[in-house]
Each structure stands twice: as structure tokens, then as C-alpha cells.
């Protein structure tokens, strides 16, 4: 599967990692929903580290869409909430 880290690019990961990424992703969503900023930041960075660690960067000229997309490392809970709440926010 292909995962995009916003602002950084895409990496390819073995599908077998999906389960552990999903666990963290569930936590991330829960933290976003209850508004736990510090928790959100911590989990986001855990997730980012894992994806960077397990993934191989895609070449720059790859045109493959991503299966999963992660917010950029400096994204705040509020920003991600906005991104998810209104697709009109994404330009282009």
C-alpha cells in the first residue's frame, strides 16, 4: 500500500503493516474527536515515525494515488479537523 505524509511525499509499505497502523490511526481519531491535543500530537508522531521507518519512498515522478494519507508533522488537531470536515479546504 502507498501512504502519503502531507508535505513530505509518499512511501510504499507492505500490506502486512496495516494492522498496526490501523490501531494507531484509531487512537488518533479518538483523540481528535475528544479534542486531546497533546495526545493527538503524540500519536500522530508515532504514526509518522512508523510509516517513515517501515516505508520506502516513492520516486518523485510516481503518479500513484495513496491508499492512506497522514497529516504533516506540524499539523494541529484543529487543522486536521478542518481538513476532514470540509473537503473544499483542499485546493487544486
Amino acid at each position, binding site marked *: 500500500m502507498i501512504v502519503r505524509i*502531507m508535505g513530505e511525499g509518499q512511501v510504499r509499505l507492505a500490506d502486512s503493516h496495516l*494492522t498496526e497502523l*490501523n490501531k494507531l490511526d484509531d487512537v488518533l*481519531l479518538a483523540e481528535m474527536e475528544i479534542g486531546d491535543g497533546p495526545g493527538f500530537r503524540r500519536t500522530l508522531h508515532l504514526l509518522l515515525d512508523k510509516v517513515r521507518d517501515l516505508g520506502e519512498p516513492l520516486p518523485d515522478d510516481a503518479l500513484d494515488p495513496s491508499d492512506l494519507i497522514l497529516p504533516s508533522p506540524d499539523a494541529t488537531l484543529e487543522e*486536521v479537523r478542518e481538513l476532514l470536515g470540509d473537503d473544499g479546504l483542499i485546493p487544486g
Partner: protein
Amino acid sequence: MESGPVLLVLLQMLELESVRRGRAKPMSGVMKRMGMIFRAKANKALDRAEDPRETLDYSYQKQLELLQKVRRGVADVATSRKRLELQLAQLNKQSSTLEDQGRKALALGREDLAREALSRRAALQQQVTDLETQHQTLQGEEEKLTLASQRLQAKVDAFRTKKETIKATYTAAQAQTRIGEAFTGISEEMGDVGLAIQRAEDKTAQLQARAGAIDELLASGALNDPTGMAKDDLQAELDRLSGGTDVELELQRMKAELAGGSSSGQQAIEGGAGQQQSQQQPKDTPRFDKQ
């Protein structure tokens, strides 16, 4: 929501995929939803077009525009960064001037003036620390945007090749199925880059407002004149105390040296001239004291 049906279809697709993989609960996390939203956006654009081949040309135009925009973004951030660097240099210069003034005041026995100079310097240092943080932020943004523009350039080139192949090889109906992935892939990149530019613009705008405020402070002389043309109150007082020259300070230093004993190191450096100077000093001192 406008994109309701598309989202719903995507939701179902995702669900199928997850079920097929036999692991994930659909829609369970942030990164899945994000992926969906980007895909929905691309699908909407594809659905709108009568002939998908036109979508390719239109998208390519958009890509070129975005490339221009990213490059402008990089240039804008660089300009802001350079402005910050200039201000930092001015503030640092001012800071070392204040330090010198503090030292001078202390040497002249004016601890009150020295305290004033040092507390002004402390306030200045606060600004410097602040600006340095901002400088780092801008540098980070510049790097990110530069990399983003390189990635986008590579993808736009790849897309152009693919687009020409598709247009030359397939009919409108056939093209539909061929376009999907490449179009979704590049749309995703464009969305990402577009957001990155927005973020960089926001940050630059915030910093520019603050940079403007510091320029005003520097210009008004509140942080003292970095050009040294107009003398500030501290300097004026110090000049008055030392008779407008550094002679007084120099004398104090020499007196201290003499009082400190042989000060052999100093004499060794100055060699034969040391003898002559030490003979002249006692004569010179009373003359300047009268001023």
C-alpha cells in the same frame, strides 16, 4: 454535502477493500478519511468532464500554474528570510554596542548606567531569540517548499508524457479507464502542495507583520539607531562622562595595570616602547583630569 454521493461510493469501495483484506474496520481512522477526501476530490473533477481527455489538458494547465505558484512561494519565503537575517544582524550589532556601553559605564564607575545598558540589552536579546526561532521556521518552510516544487516538477513531467500517450492511443471511452490512477495521483499531489503553499503563505504573512513592527522600532530609535548617526541618551551620557573620547577609560585601564604590579606580559609585548609610555603617563594624567 455536495460531494455526498461520491463520498458514499468511495466509502463503499473502501469498505469492500477492507473486508477483502479482512482486517480493518472501514472509516476507522484519520488517515483513511484523509485518503478518501483527496480521492473524492479527484473523482469529482473526472466526473464533471464530458471527454476525459480534456480533463487531462485542463489538469495539466492547472499543474503548470501550481508549479509557478510554488516557485513564487519559495521566492517569497526566501525574501522574508533575508529580511529577518538583516534585522537579526542589526539587533545583534545593537546588542554588542549596549554591551560595550555597559562595560564602559562600569569602568567609569557608573553602575546605574551600566545597569540601564544591560537591561536594554536583555530586552534586545529577547527579540533576537524570538527572531532566531522565526528564522528557523522560515528556513524549514523554504526547504519544504523547494522539495515540494521538485517533486511536483517530476510528477508534472511524468503526467505530460502519460497524457500524450493516452490522447494518442485511446478513444474518449477507453481513456476514461486509463486516466484514473494518474489523474488521482497528480490531483492528490496538487492538493498537498496547494495546502503547503497556503501554510507557508500564512506563516510568512504573520512573520512579515512582526518584521514590520521591528523595522518601525529600529527606525524610531526605540531600539537605538543602528547606523550610529544619532547618539542615544546612554551614549550621550557616556560621552559626556569621558569627555567625548576614550582617553579617560584608557587612563583608568593603565592605572589599573600599574597598580596591578609589574604587568610583565603587557611590557613584553610592547617591548622597548613600554618604558617610554610608563614615564609619560604620570605627567599626562593630571592634564586630562581637569577637563
